[in-house]
């Protein structure tokens, strides 16, 4: 048996099928992954993402520290609550993790990192923080609920105080607001609008129940994966890892090159890769016919071989899509499924945008 989140009993009571995920017992679905996927695209669903780690940073030099630690630049965060998606790199430019960092009051920052990497992340961050006198505080007592879908924000506004609801109504995308003991961020991993709510563990089950009463459907990690894939969002450990750089992972846009004198970890290697052009890139593939693309299938292209990094049936498209790492300059591709090549189209992700198909074929 793995670690349990404060919502474990809520999941079991809702009929969840629990599976191991990075050492945690997590709900894969509550009956039908497809129905849960559609509910998020059409109305609202909620996910227990308490297995992700909240890491709070404080100290006078925290901003300087993060400008060194992260490939994106926290100097872009001008106001309290502003958020940034970024990679954290190793010295070779490989991705240690992808994460969201939030600016908080008084020069403090909050990071939310992946469950599977939390221990190595915290060790890495702590090691480098020492030079800056920054304190690193992991917050295992906090739970996190993502509420996503076109009806998600309204549902959340209905379960918080009037004051917080009014603030949230004006909250911009990629910004967070604290209130009612919650930390509510207008972020997500589905391609839909909505919130990720950090809540004290002992208040999580009550918040979950109040959202359910508003018609927000419990949604498992299975649907979370098909939703993020349709939205063209990378999964750490599948689509990128320590051996791939942001430029090889479709994440060049998250690297802040200016100012040129900002010395972030991995910069030197990235600069030379940028100058030469990466030899391999991450692209989106759409299967032209029946069948299902999966991760680790061989991709045959006009420039050589590649590999799918994740793939699935895309419920919104009713066909299969994948992300694949292929030689740069690839213009045509086929994917081997059980030894037989299948024609695919190359389509720039996201495959689904604002709940609608977005194929660039």
């Amino acid at each position, binding site marked *: 048996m793995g670690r349990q989140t404060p919502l474990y009993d809520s999941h079991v009571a809702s009929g969840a099928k629990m599976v191991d995920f990075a050492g945690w017992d997590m709900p*894969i679905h509550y009956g039908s*992954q497809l129905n849960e996927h559609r509910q998020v695209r059409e109305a609202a669903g909620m996910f227990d993402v308490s297995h992700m780690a909240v890491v709070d940073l404080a100290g006078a030099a925290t901003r300087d520290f993060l400008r060194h630690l992260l490939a994106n630049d926290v100097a872009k965060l001008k106001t309290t609550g502003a958020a940034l998606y970024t990679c954290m790199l190793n010295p070779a430019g490989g991705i240690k993790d992808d994460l969201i960092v939030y600016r908080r009051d008084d020069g403090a920052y909050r990071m939310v990192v992946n469950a599977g990497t939390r221990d190595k992340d915290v060790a890495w961050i702590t090691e480098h923080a020492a030079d800056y006198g920054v304190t690193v505080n992991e917050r295992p007592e906090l739970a996190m609920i993502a509420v996503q879908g076109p009806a998600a924000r309204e549902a959340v506004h209905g379960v918080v105080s009037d004051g917080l609801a009014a603030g949230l109504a004006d909250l911009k995308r990629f910004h967070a607001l604290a209130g009612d003991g919650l930390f509510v961020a207008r972020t997500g991993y589905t391609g839909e609008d909505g919130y990720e709510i950090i809540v004290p563990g002992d208040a999580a089950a009550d918040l979950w129940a109040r959202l359910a009463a508003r018609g927000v459907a419990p949604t498992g990690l299975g649907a979370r994966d098909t939703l993020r894939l349709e939205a063209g969002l990378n999964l750490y450990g599948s689509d990128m890892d320590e051996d791939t750089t942001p430029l090889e992972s479709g994440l060049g846009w998250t690297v802040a090159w200016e100012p040129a004198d900002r010395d972030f970890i991995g910069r030197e290697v990235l600069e030379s890769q940028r100058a030469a052009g990466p030899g391999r890139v991450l692209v989106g593939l759409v299967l032209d016919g*029946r*069948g*299902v693309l999966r991760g680790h299938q061989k991709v045959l292209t006009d420039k050589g071989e590649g590999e799918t990094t994740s793939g699935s*049936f895309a*419920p919104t498209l009713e066909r299969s899509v994948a992300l694949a790492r292929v030689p740069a300059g690839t213009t045509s591709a086929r994917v081997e499924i059980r030894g037989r090549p299948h024609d695919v189209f190359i389509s720039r992700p996201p495959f689904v945008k604002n709940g609608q198909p977005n194929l660039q074929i």
Partner: protein
Amino acid sequence: MSDIPKDLRYSPSHEWVRDEGNGVVTLGITDHAQESLGDLVFVELPEVGQSLAVGDEMGVVESVKAASDLFSPISGEVLEVNETLGDTPEAVNSDPYGDGWIAKVKLSIPTELDDLLDADAYTAVAEEEED
């Protein structure tokens, strides 16, 4: 607990077989199998006329999360396949022993039916997996 009809025979790899008389069987995957796979999105059917031996790969069922090979529980020749699964693979989830059937096969060694599991024996196999 999944549905395991008494009048069918089963393979340990989760196929069911219904004896239609005159040497013909209908086969598919069990309720337990569809439940473990989750929502099906693609079924690769065997070919009509294909000859099968016990244990041959005869197709693939794919759910949103995984692909699973179909293994022939008997020997014989494929007479008919359920073409409707091309458009409605979810019939295997909703009605695994009815609309979700996969193929009809003319037996070449009818006594093989006796080697398959009965409902009680298959129940034990399925329960062991659920633990």
